[in-house]
């Protein structure tokens, strides 16, 4: 269809660039890695240190306090089922990766979303980047990632973040932009600084939308569990991959469900925390 004479070999340059980067700045990437690794390993260590019943009890209490008694029970049962699937250890390992990725995603994403909402030019530049982060097939950047960061949990966290960041940025931006102009003006009339305007008016007003962003970021992070496993992050993702390679529907379903349960528990607890936070604000 498209004439064959016209060609563009952009990819080659990217390839060369990756190798050049690796040869010249390998050290820099190592430093970045170490920071993330430290947090990740500590979370994992803590999770694995806790007795299983303790974590179940903790989730029950959190669910109960933050949402409702029923929620607490449901979450506890879910966690118990994961254990009964024989997936406790990989789940904890995945949990550590996901928590780390979500943590850094929110840490980076919410400020970026705020920045994006504050200036149209920023939004204009950021939007295609976000589009690319979400649609560039992960394998495409995983190979460079492996070259730059090696395989393992840390690159797993990075891969996860690339995918999990956009929703929180987008929805923070959307939420902030939709705050009623009237309230913003009222706040300005009292000489609010940009900070005060943001923290006291805009963020609380945008909270429901931002919380949907947190939900989507969590979902995306968990959706990347398998991809992360493909670059050596281990965890349930690894179990899933193994089951899949064996076309073991049973194993796949169980490990898949474990991911889903984890998603539901993390999401609901975050939402509960958000509501609590909001209630305290007002």
């Amino acid at each position, binding site marked *: 269809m498209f004439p064959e004479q016209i060609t563009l070999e952009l990819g080659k340059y990217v390839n060369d660039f990756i190798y050049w980067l690796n040869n010249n700045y390998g050290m820099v990437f190592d430093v970045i890695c170490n920071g993330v690794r430290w947090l990740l390993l500590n979370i994992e260590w803590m999770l694995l240190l806790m007795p299983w019943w303790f974590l179940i009890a903790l989730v029950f209490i959190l669910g109960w306090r933050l949402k409702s008694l029923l929620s607490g029970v449901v979450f506890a049962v879910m966690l118990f089922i994961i254990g009964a699937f024989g997936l406790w250890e990989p789940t904890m390992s995945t949990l550590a990766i996901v928590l780390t990725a979500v943590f850094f995603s929110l840490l980076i994403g919410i400020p970026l979303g705020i920045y994006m909402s504050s200036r149209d030019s920023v939004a204009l530049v950021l939007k295609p980047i976000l589009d690319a982060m979400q649609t560039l097939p992960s394998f495409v950047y995983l190979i460079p990632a492996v070259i730059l960061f090696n395989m393992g949990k840390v690159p797993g966290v990075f891969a996860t973040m690339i995918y999990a960041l956009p929703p929180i940025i987008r929805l923070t931006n959307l939420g902030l932009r939709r705050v009623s102009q*009237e*309230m913003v*003006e*009222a*706040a*300005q*009339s*009292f*000489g*609010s*600084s940009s900070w*005060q305007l943001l923290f*006291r*008016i805009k963020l*609380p*007003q945008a909270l429901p939308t931002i919380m949907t962003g947190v939900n989507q970021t969590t979902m995306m992070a968990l959706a990347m569990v398998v991809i992360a496993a493909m670059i050596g992050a281990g965890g349930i993702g690894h179990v899933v991959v193994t089951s899949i390679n064996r076309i073991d529907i049973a194993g796949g379903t169980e490990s898949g469900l474990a991911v889903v349960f984890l998603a539901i528990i993390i999401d609901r607890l975050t939402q509960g925390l958000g509501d609590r936070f*909001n209630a305290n*604000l*007002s």
Partner: protein
Amino acid sequence: MTTKLQTENLTKVFGRPSKQVWRMLKEGVAKDEILKRTGCTVGVNNVSFKVNKGEVFVIMGLSGSGKSTLIRCLNLLTKPTAGKVFVDGENILEYSREELRRLRQNKMAMVFQHFGLFTHMSVQNNVEYGLAVKGIPREEREKKAQQALEAVGLGGWQDMLPGQLSGGMQQRVGLARALANDPDILLMDEPFSSLDPLIRRDMQMELLELQDRLQKTIVFITHDINEAFKMGDRVAVMKDGIIEQTGTPEEILANPASDYIRDFVQDVDRSRVLQAKDIMFTPDALLSRKSGLKMAIREMQLHGISSVFVIGSGRKLLGLITIDDAVSALKDNKTVDDILKDDYFTTGPEIYVNELIPLAKDTRYPIAVVDENERLLGIIVRASVISAFVG
């Protein structure tokens, strides 16, 4: 008197004003015409005025005449398209963001036409907002907010959300929020429009007292002419973005600059604007104590009146004699002093006419207007009281 707030050739055009718009503005093309031809709405057109410290400056005008736009230009919530705004002599359009912020924090507070309450905060936190922004410590903040809430009659409602309050209550929260901040300049955009008369009267008194005590400068938009004339030291009447007339309530009542303004003030309750001194007149006849009864009778007959006031030295009011008494006294050889009556009413020159109505109704004699030294300044007859209502 120091000028607190001043605008110079302030203009605000909504939309992207092209050269054409400016030319049309200069040529005085009508606002509607400009809208139709260019799609730009003229909000405020070349407005200049000064407000002195401690003054209440009232802005009135038709709906859509640019009052809100004007008041919002004063704290730059709306950025003027052209012109200058001075606060304490400084052109705030040249302020940096930080300076503007401090100005808004410390010198100005605004009450919004549509309230502009923060829906996610309790009433208490809404009122505390301005103080919190300034970094006032929590305890003081709470105390001040509580006081402001009490002042607007919302004592027990601090824990509600704005959405749970009635319209008038919401408006009062907006009021309390501005008052709590204790600014030099209060910008109030129809602050009492949703209030019932009782609470409105309280709020008006509260505000006037505050202004009097603390020398606040207040810019006040209202549609209630009686309120405007009651509150305003000076009143400006806007039309199509222009200030048509500025003056004291009496000046405007006395000399409306156009039919529009005449029409506008038609509903005013003059009896609450006009004072005794505005309607009194110098009596045709006056009797000095030293004059005799004959003189008195002649005076009264001459002017066709049935009673006359008697004054002493320095116009001090001594009393009143009637023609009947004078005639019979002349027969009985009595003096003026003997028949001097004191069952007339006296009043001060600054008493409002509406307070004179009961007197006018009950008395058979004119009402004497006297100063603090009992010197007669003029008299008021029933007809003048009535005429106060028709201007």
